[in-house]
């Protein structure tokens, strides 16, 4: 028996790591993965809260987040492929045709 807050803290830490990844990673793909990490962290929160409240809705929310993540992955990776075709790079710092 452990407090729910442990799970929540874990989720917060993972989320923050995802944010950090979004900021420091330099390849489009890994930046995108960091976002996935954030979503996963949120999911953990949802499941924990669902358990806390005995509310199934929280779990269903996670289910929908997964579907959305899948859709996002399809589109995001398609964009990444398109960008690779035109620019031959995935480095965030070289995707800079437009600035301020």
């Amino acid at each position, binding site marked *: 028996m452990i407090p729910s807050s442990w799970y*929540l803290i874990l989720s917060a830490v993972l*989320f923050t790591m*995802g*944010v950090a990844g*979004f900021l420091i990673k330099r390849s*489009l793909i890994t*930046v*995108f993965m960091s*976002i996935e990490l*954030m*979503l996963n*962290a*949120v999911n953990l*929160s*949802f499941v*924990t*809260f*669902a358990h*806390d*409240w005995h*509310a199934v*809705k*929280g779990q*269903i*929310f996670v289910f*929908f*987040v997964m579907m*959305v993540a899948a*859709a*996002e992955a399809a*589109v*995001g990776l398609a*964009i*990444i492929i*398109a*960008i690779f*075709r*035109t*620019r031959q790079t995935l480095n965030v710092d070289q*995707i*800079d*045709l*437009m600035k*301020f």
Partner: protein
Amino acid sequence: MNPVPDLYRILPEVVLTITGVLVMLLDAAMPKTSRRRVLGWVAAFGTVAALYASLLQLNLPAGTAYYGTVQTDGFSIFFHVLICAIVLVALLVSLDTFPRNNQHTGEFYALITFGAVGMVLMTSAVELLLVFIALEISSITTYILAGYRKTSGKGVEAAIKYFLLGSFATGFLLYGIALIFGATGTTQITEIALRIPGAQSQALVLGGLALMLVGILFKVSAAPFHVWTPDVYEGSPTPVVALMSTAPKAAAFALLIRVLWGAFPTLHSVWVPILWVVAVLSMTVGNIAALRQENVKRMLAYSSIAHAGYLLAAFAGAGTASITAIAFYTAAYAAMNVGIFAAITLASGYDDSLPLIQDFRGLLHRAPVLAGLLLFFLISLVGIPFTGGFFAKFLSFSTAVNGGAFWLAIIGLLNSGLAAGYYLRFAVTIAQPPVANPPELPTYRVGIAVAVGIVLAAGATLILGIAPGHILDAATSAAHSFPAAISSTLP
């Protein structure tokens, strides 16, 4: 128990979905070589039908359907009509300007129609789960449309920036929803409002509110969550910018109202100061950055950030007046912005053949009608009386003053003075005598579609400025969909 069949409550969404599917099926059924312009007409007619369906909903009593996930009321209908109208104009403009040899024409129109489903649903959803899905539909559509010029470096760059930052913001929104769910045990907006006062952990509620605000403010491109806007507008095809600078934003503002007034009315004193700061930041950052832009679309992007700021100023108002002002501003903003991007599409084409402000020099001498329309929309953006832009700004600031945010109104109006600088620079460039060898204008045959579209936008802008009565009434009745707002208006 519920005398209205559930389906009536989502009729516009259903119509749009069917239209989208129809477009796709027709696209597949048409021979490969045939022109696909007709698909755009199908989509446009579908949108008109959806608009009509939204108007039909006026006959329904306000209420929810599908187990409290979706609600039709004056508010949702107002935004339904608005969004359908925007989508219609965007479609009409695309019809004549979308490149003929593009191999993804069918997808283009289908995507716009499906995107509209998400946008309209965002305004009527009262279940955060549905809100989330609808938001994602609208966002993902715009990510894709932003990257439609996929052979141009800027096009895909716009798409990837929009996509990554948008998904990032979605993460925050979700986390916010999770915390709210944790605090209240529900994700139904009206339920949340009921449970918040008794919630055991107010810290969770506040944290959730803040994170959700981050997510939604990103979608309306308010500073400091605006960084994506200029790049995306610059890189995306102009007819798409006409759509995505208005429709998703209108939906996002509707969502913001729905969430704040629907779920968090008791925390009014918390979110008003936050939005105060964001509003000031948005207008200031937007305007100052816009002053130094050379690219037309970037300039308008920053201007739209500033407009988000003016709009957010209205949140400082009290009760229904505030919501009325926001709804009205959204409509006016949509009319003039969709109009100006439509005009720019005509002048500079799908592929931006006139990207810079300087390229527009002498347009008034070369294409007076087009330039006149452009000037008209610019004047409205400045906020000169007898245009929708003025009236919207007037309402927004007057509700802010009424709500006691006197300084906000002053900062806002000073900002709109500042904004006049760059709008006028553009206007003046258009009016200036042309140079000796002006850049080629793209030769679009001004067809019936684009003419109707642009006239619709201009007419709306004018009517909103001269005879805003009816729309104001609609906005007021929209505002009366929120019991919390009504009760806070009463002394």
